[in-house]
Every structure is written in structure tokens, then in C-alpha cells.
């Protein structure tokens, strides 16, 4: 039921199988199955607290699930050794939500960091690669700036450039459009599509922004309360009948809190009249 449109499993670069996790008794991820196929843009949608950040942490190997497996390029990162994990990670580029750029380094040095640390390339080569990446994300004239001097959109672009530094097979973007105005957010969507077109990179985007999701996605997956309630091509997804998805698509608020608040106020008023 979960994965009707997934391509043959041989095509999957990331495959998540039955991943569960709970923090202090609360189920955060519940039997999540998900495949990310080569060359596609998969958008993982979910509201706040739906478990999407937790799932991302697991995919990056920053946390270990209680149950299930996460296989990347044939290596199960939930039980592999540290060097194996390192090898897998070298083929992933990650742009974190706030960019996670290092404040003590210029944009140029931030992008150069993985190249300097993890390759034996000469400085001149590194400089060339860095400039190519910065031009690709449209940041070439901000190369010498420091992260605190950048706007939100520029910071995200720089983070994408750093994520692309080692020419990863998989690019993972955490909330690329959160906190950006519509224009900058649309520019970032264009950038993501451009990266897919020109580098053929597989992209996993975690977001809660519907518009951006539908613009860039090949497939959309939706997490709700730790469960994956739908994975579909975006056209089918938009017609999905699940009430939570309809609610998300139509921007309807949850009914519960308001009723509870009204009841509380009513009882408070009754109490104060006595």
C-alpha cells in the first residue's frame, strides 16, 4: 500500500525499510518504508513534529533507528562500520536548514572545506572547483563574504554549493525554502531543478512548503505522526483522498485545539461568575 509507484528496488539509491524510533516512550517514526530512486527529486512533506527531521537524521547516519534498515548504494548504514559510513557519506551532499556554514570561514573557504579535507587535490584545482560550484548556484560575486553577512537565500545557496563540492550522487536538502520570501524561494526551486537537470543528481528534499514541493518534485511522500501515509507521483498525490493530506493541501487548521480552548475559556468564565 505504501509504495505503489516506486521503481524497481534495484533503482533505489536510498531505501528505508521498516524504520522505527521513539524518544522517551513517544513513537517518532513508525515502520517507515521509503525508496529514493536514481535521478529523481523526492520531496518528503510533513508538518512540524511529523518526524521528518528525525527521519533525515537517520538517513544521514547521525542517529540509529530502533528497528529497520537504511540502505544507501547497497550499504546498510544502520549497522555498517565507521569507515563504511564515511565512504557512503562522501557520496552524499547535505544542505542543512540554516545552512550550517562555518562562521569563521568565508563562503569560498566553506565550499572548499570538504575538498581540502577529504581530497588530495592541489590548491589551484580546488579553487577552480569552488568557483564552478559558486557559479552554478549563482554566488560567485559573494565568494569572499562571511556567513553572517549573507541573506537567508544566499546562505542556502552557499550551503547547496558546499553540499555539491564533492560531486555527490545524492543531494539532501533540509527545508530549502523555509524562512525565505516567495521570490527567493522560487529562485531556490529553480536552482534545485537546474542541479537535477545539469548534474543528474538524485535529490531528497525535506520541507513543509506545499508550493515549492509541487514545483520541484517528481514524487512526494508525506509523513504524519511518524507514519508514512502516502508516497506518490505528484499528480496523483494532489488528488489523494487521505484526510490529513487534504487538510495539508487545503491549509485547514486542526479542529481540536480550538474546541479545547473554547471549552477552557467557557469553564473559566463560569468559574469566575460564581
Amino acid at each position: 500500500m505504501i509504495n505503489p509507484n516506486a521503481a524497481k528496488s534495484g533503482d533505489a539509491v536510498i531505501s528505508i525499510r521498516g524504520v522505527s524510533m521513539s524518544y522517551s516512550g513517544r513513537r517518532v517514526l513508525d515502520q517507515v518504508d521509503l525508496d529514493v530512486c536514481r535521478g529523481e527529486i523526492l520531496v518528503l512533506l510533513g508538518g512540524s513534529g511529523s518526524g521528518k527531521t528525525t527521519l533525515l537524521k537517520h538517513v544521514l547516519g547521525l542517529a540509529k533507528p530502533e528497528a529497520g534498515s537504511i540502505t544507501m548504494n547497497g550499504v546498510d548504514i544502520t549497522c555498517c562500520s565507521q569507515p563504511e559510513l564515511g565512504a557512503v557519506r562522501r557520496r552524499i551532499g547535505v544542505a542543512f536548514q540554516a545552512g550550517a556554514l562555518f562562521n569563521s570561514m568565508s563562503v569560498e573557504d566553506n565550499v572548499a572545506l570538504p575538498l581540502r579535507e577529504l581530497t588530495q587535490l592541489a590548491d589551484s584545482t580546488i579553487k577552480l572547483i569552488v568557483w564552478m560550484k559558486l557559479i552554478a548556484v549563482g554566488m560567485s560575486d559573494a565568494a569572499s563574504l562571511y556567513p553572517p553577512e549573507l541573506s537567508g537565500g544566499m546562505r542556502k545557496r552557499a550551503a547547496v554549493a558546499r553540499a555539491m563540492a564533492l560531486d555527490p550522487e545524492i543531494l539532501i536538502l533540509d527545508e530549502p525554502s523555509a524562512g525565505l520570501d516567495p521570490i527567493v524561494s522560487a529562485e531556490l526551486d529553480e536552482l534545485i531543478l537546474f542541479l537535477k537537470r545539469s548534474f543528474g543528481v538524485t535529490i531528497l528534499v525535506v520541507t513543509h512548503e506545499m508550493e515549492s514541493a509541487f514545483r520541484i518534485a517528481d514524487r512526494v511522500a508525506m509523513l504524519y505522526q511518524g507514519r508514512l501515509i502516502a508516497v506518490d507521483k505528484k499528480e496523483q498525490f494532489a488528488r489523494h483522498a487521505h484526510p490529513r493530506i487534504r487538510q495539508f493541501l487545503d491549509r485547514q487548521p486542526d479542529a481540536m485545539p480550538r474546541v479545547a480552548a473554547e471549552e477552557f475559556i467557557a469553564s473559566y468564565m463560569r468559574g469566575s461568575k460564581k
Partner: protein
Amino acid sequence: MTFLEQVGRAAIVQVEDAGALAMQFWSVLRKLPRVLPVVGARRRWRSVVEQMLTIGASALPMAGAMALCTGFILALQSASELRRFGAVELVVEVVVIGFTRELGPLVTALSVSGRSASAISAEIGTMVVTEEMDALRVMGLDPVEFTLAPKYLAALITMPCLTILSTLCGIFAGYLFLAFSMDMSLRIYFQAVAEAIRLRDVAFMLVKSMVFATIIVHIGCLEGLRVRGGPEAVGHSTTAAVVKSTFLIILADLGTTAIFYLMGWSATG
């Protein structure tokens, strides 16, 4: 919660603290060679130099001024007592021994603790909050090697230097006092200093300063790494870092002094 439960929980927290300290210490110790110039990873020693400037060099005015004041106070206080025995010249010995054995390392450590323990925990805490630590891990870089180890090495190098300089400031303050109160000349003062100063005390001073340096960086890093949640947690961690490192410095001072005393190394001879 019953009283017993509270005591038990507090004890567990303390044991956890100690365990985390020990684990972090071990992991940094293993990575320390990587940040050395020549033998270490390329470029890493540059961040050591940067850290030496922020932890050490920029603390110099403050540590120096504090030592100058403390030296003057020590001279003033001891002179008023020693005058009754007609032994004002002994002020030189009091200042020299007091500073080399005790006040030099302590005053320096307290000033560095106030400046750097908070700065380190704020820096590392912010890196945790903004996912920079995660970014390092995902890039395959070890946060311990990349951010912690340079700070340790920088502190271990600069703290003894700072301590020497502030001790000199303190001793110079003793001269200022004696020059004003009894017109002692610089030459005579420094002759007296040369007689009073002992190599063993200086070695003791350097050992102490390195112990204090470790405490400051260690607590700063640990509190920073413990930050969970949003930016307000960073504020808590900086406070905790300063309080804990200051307390531990005094405790370690007591410990090392007691050891040196019991070994009979502090006897004047």
C-alpha cells in the same frame, strides 16, 4: 519526590558529568597529535594559531591588569602586618612566592575562565544549534579533531605563557609598592626577587597553569556540546561553563597544592 530519590538523582547526574568529562578528555587526547604542525593533518595547526590568539593573546591585558592589582593588594596587606615586626623587606618574598606558587596561575586562570570558558561554550553550543556539528559529521570530519582539539592545544600552549607574564606583572606590582613606600630601587628589588624565586616553584606554577587550561577548555567544550534545543540553551550553557570551570579551578588548585605540600616540595629551603 522523596529526599532519598533527590539525593540519588543528584548523585547520578554528578557521576554522569564525570563520565562525560573523562570520555571527552580521552577522545580529545587521541586527536591531539592531528592538530600539531608538521606531523598533524595539513592546515589544522592554523586553527590552533587562531585559537591561541583568541584564548591567549587577547586575554593578556585583562590577566595582566588583574595580576598587577592583586600584586599590589598582596604587597599592601602583607606590608601592614610585616611592618609590626620591622620586616617590610619580606614583602618581596611574600609577593614572589605568593605569585609563583599560587596567585599567578590562579588569577590568570580566573580571567581566562571568565573570558574563554564562556566564549568556547557559546561557540560550540551555537555550532550544535545551527547543525554545524552535524554538517561536520556528515562531511566525514570529526568535530573533536576539527573544533575541540585546536582549542585544547592552544590553551595548553598559551596558558603557561600567560601565567608567566601575569606573574611578572604581579611581581612588578610588588616593586611599585616598595618603590613608593620605601624608595627601593629597581636593582635592589630584582636582586631580592632573584633570591626569592625558585625553579621548583616556577615548575609548580607551569604545571598548575596547564591543569587550569585543561579545565577551562574541557568544561567550555562539554557544556557547549550539551546544548540541546534553541539559542536560549546556549545562554544557559555559557553560564554553566563559567560557574563550573571557576569552581573546578579552585578545587584543582586545592588538589595540586595539597599534593605538592604532602610531597614536601613546597618547603622553603
